[in-house]
């Protein structure tokens, strides 16, 4: 699974958890245009959010 696919799977889960799909689709579309470090930063932020929201 490449970075974009991994990112998409996280966002899919977040949408299931009630996150705003419009905003997440924005980030999904933007993601491939980011540099590697920017991708990592964004992925990390969303992954952490997913981990925390999963506890609810």
């Amino acid at each position, binding site marked *: 699974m490449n970075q974009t696919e991994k990112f998409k799977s996280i966002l899919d889960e977040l949408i299931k958890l009630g996150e705003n799909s*419009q*905003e997440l689709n*924005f*980030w999904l579309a933007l993601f491939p*245009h980011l540099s590697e470090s*920017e991708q990592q930063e964004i992925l990390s*932020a*969303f992954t952490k*959010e997913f981990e*925390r929201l999963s506890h609810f």
Partner: protein
Amino acid sequence: MSFESYNITPSHDDENRPEQIPDQESLDTKEEIIEERQNKTAAVLSKILESSLAQKASKIPGPSAVVGGLELVLGRHADGEELSGLGKITRIIESAALVYVLADLSAKYFLGLDNTYVDIGAIGAKGLGWASFAAQKIMPKIQELGVKDFTLAQVAGLIQEAKGSKELLMAMLSEARNFPSDLFDSDFISLNLSKINESD
């Protein structure tokens, strides 16, 4: 009531269990968690826009850039004379990048706002409201400086058109990164029409 007031003596089993005291993160509400993430991702977007646009702004001298931008948006000079190659210019203007750069430069030079990028960057998470911000803050100042009313209406219209458009924000970002800076001469007003012709 504090935990200690229960006066619970741990059983033997309890001593072998991992500590159950929740950390601060698990105490946050869903809204707080989402907001925290939004702040992080907005900061990334802000950095991207800042680095892209600051580089371009540094090549464009002074407030004349804004006047030049207005002329491009209108397709005519301030005195009303029509610019040549209007259709092609209009097509360029349709790129959100120019509207974006125009709004940003206007804020920077007319209002002295150095944190415009931050405001713009925050919108990725806050509802794509930058256009409204720009229209409200910039247009009155341009009007005060004597640019014609019809100019304001048209520029405001372009900016308002961008409001709430996810696709347009995407296009802006893409254009901001890839916008051909050599499209303009050292003086922003002097649009290099030959470059536009080549792209036709």
